[in-house]
C-alpha cells in the first residue's frame, strides 16, 4: 500500500505510549455531524443529521446512510469521503463471503472485517487512519444488532450509541430513555427526540436521515415524507 518511499508507518507511538494520529482521527469524528443508533427488541434504527453546506445543494443527491447488504446498513460521523471508501470495501467483502459460503454474511463478521481494514490504515506505510466512526445496524439469525467501529479499528456491540458533535448530551439522553423491551417504533421516536436535543434550527424530513431494519431483515432508508410523519407523531 502506498509508494515505497513511504513504507514506514505514519501512525507511531508517542513517548507516553499513545497513538496520537488515532486520537486526532477521533477528534475529527467528534467534530462531525451527530449520528446515533438504537437497538430495539424487534429491529434497529440509525439516524443522522444531514446539514448541507448551502441551500443550493441538491439534497436528493446526498445520502449519508448506506446499505452494505440487504440486511445491514451503516451510518457515519466524520469525514464523508473516508466513509465512502469503507462502504465500498465492506460491500465487496460481503459479496466475497457470499460467493464463498452461499450465505449472507453475519453482521459480526462484516463488522470484524471492516474494523480490520480500519486497523490496517493505522499501521500500514504511508497512510493515515480513517476519520470516521461507523454505526453498523443489521438483522440476521442472531437477531437485531448494532455495532460501533472507531478509527482505531476497535468495535463494540451497543444497545444504543451516538457519535459526532453532540455525543455526550445524546448519550445521556439515550441512557435515560433506553429500555430493553423497546419496540422499533418507540426507538425511532427516541432517535428523533435525541437528534432534536442538539439540533440547530428547524428539524424536518429533509435535514435528517433515518434508516431502519426490522424482523423482515430488509434495511431501508426512510423517505422524507415518512420522516415527517414520525416527526408529527413526536410533536
Amino acid at each position, binding site marked *: 500500500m502506498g509508494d515505497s518511499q513511504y513504507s514506514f508507518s*505514519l501512525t507511531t507511538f508517542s*513517548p507516553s505510549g499513545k497513538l496520537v494520529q488515532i486520537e486526532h482521527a477521533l477528534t*475529527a469524528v467528534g467534530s462531525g455531524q451527530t449520528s446515533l443508533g438504537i437497538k430495539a427488541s424487534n429491529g434497529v434504527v440509525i439516524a443522522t443529521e444531514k446539514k448541507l453546506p448551502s441551500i*443550493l445543494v441538491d439534497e436528493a443527491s446526498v445520502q449519508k446512510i448506506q446499505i452494505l447488504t440487504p440486511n445491514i446498513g451503516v451510518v457515519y460521523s466524520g*469525514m464523508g469521503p473516508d466513509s465512502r471508501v469503507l462502504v465500498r470495501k465492506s460491500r465487496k467483502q460481503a459479496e466475497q463471503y457470499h460467493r464463498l459460503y452461499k450465505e449472507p454474511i453475519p453482521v459480526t463478521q462484516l463488522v470484524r472485517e471492516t474494523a480490520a481494514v480500519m486497523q490496517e490504515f493505522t499501521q500500514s506505510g504511508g497512510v493515515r487512519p480513517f476519520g470516521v466512526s461507523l454505526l453498523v445496524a443489521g438483522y440476521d439469525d442472531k437477531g437485531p444488532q448494532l455495532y460501533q467501529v472507531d478509527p482505531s479499528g476497535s468495535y463494540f456491540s451497543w444497545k444504543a450509541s451516538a457519535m459526532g458533535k453532540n455525543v455526550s448530551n445524546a448519550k445521556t439522553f439515550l441512557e435515560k430513555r433506553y429500555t430493553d423491551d423497546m419496540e422499533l417504533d418507540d426507538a425511532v421516536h427516541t432517535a428523533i427526540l435525541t437528534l432534536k436535543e442538539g439540533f440547530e434550527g428547524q428539524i424536518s424530513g429533509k435535514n435528517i436521515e433515518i434508516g431502519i431494519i426490522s424482523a423482515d431483515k430488509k434495511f431501508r432508508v426512510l423517505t422524507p415524507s415518512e420522516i415527517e410523519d414520525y416527526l408529527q407523531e413526536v410533536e
Partner: protein
Amino acid sequence: MSRGSGGGYDRHITIFSPEGRLYQVEYAFKAVKSSGITSIGVRGKDSVCVVTQKKVPDKLLDQTSVAHLFPITKFLGLLATGITADARTLVQQARNEAAEYRHKYGYEMPVDVLARWIADKSQVYTQHAYMRPLGVVAMILAIDEEKGPQLFKCDPAGHFFGHKATSAGVKEQEAINFLEKKMKNDPAFSYDETVQTAISALQSVLQEDFKANEIEVGIVSKENPVFRILTTEEIDEHLTAISERD
C-alpha cells in the same frame, strides 16, 4: 505534549493535526483560490450553464490555449478551477475513465458516476502520503437520461454534491450568497435565464462588466445534450440581453 503534532509533518503530508484537521487538504483549497479566477454554475429546468473568467495574463499568449472548460465526452463537460496543471491531469484521467466506462458497459458514463469517481480519487490523495491532493475544484455538467440536467461539484477533500447552483474560486462565498438569493424559491429557469443568471452572477460578484472574450461559457440542454462551449458571438448576445434587461 511536544510530539503531539506528529513532528510537525501534519502540515506537509495528509496526516491529522491535533484538532483532527487535514492541513494539506485545507491548503489545497487555498491553492484553488490562488488561481485568481471565479467560476459559477447554474442548473435550470432543462439546461445547465457554467461560466468562468478567462484571464490572459500576457498579450503574447495564444488566447485559445487558455482554457478551463473541457469536454470529457460528447455529453459531459468539466469546468476546472484552480491550478492549471492539476486540472489537465484530472481532465486526462476523467476522459480515460469515461471512455473505458462507455466501452465496458455499453452506455455513456452518467454525471454522478463520474463525479463519484473523481471524488473517490481525490479522497485517496487525502489519505495516502505519497500523493498530494490536487488543487482543483471540478464542476461537471450533463443532461442525465433519467434525472435531467445535473450539476456536480467535486473538491480536493473528496466531497461531491449535486447542486442547483454553485461557485468556486476567489469569490466563491460571495457568489454562493448571491445565488442563494436567486434560487431561494426553486425557480425553474429557461435556457436563456440559466445562462444569463450565471453570467450576471459573475458580473455582480466581481463588480465588472465583461466583454465576450473575457469569459468562457459552457452549456448542455435537453434539446441538445451535447456539451458545447459558446462562441464569442453567442456570449455577446447574452451580454447584450443582460444589459438591456437592467
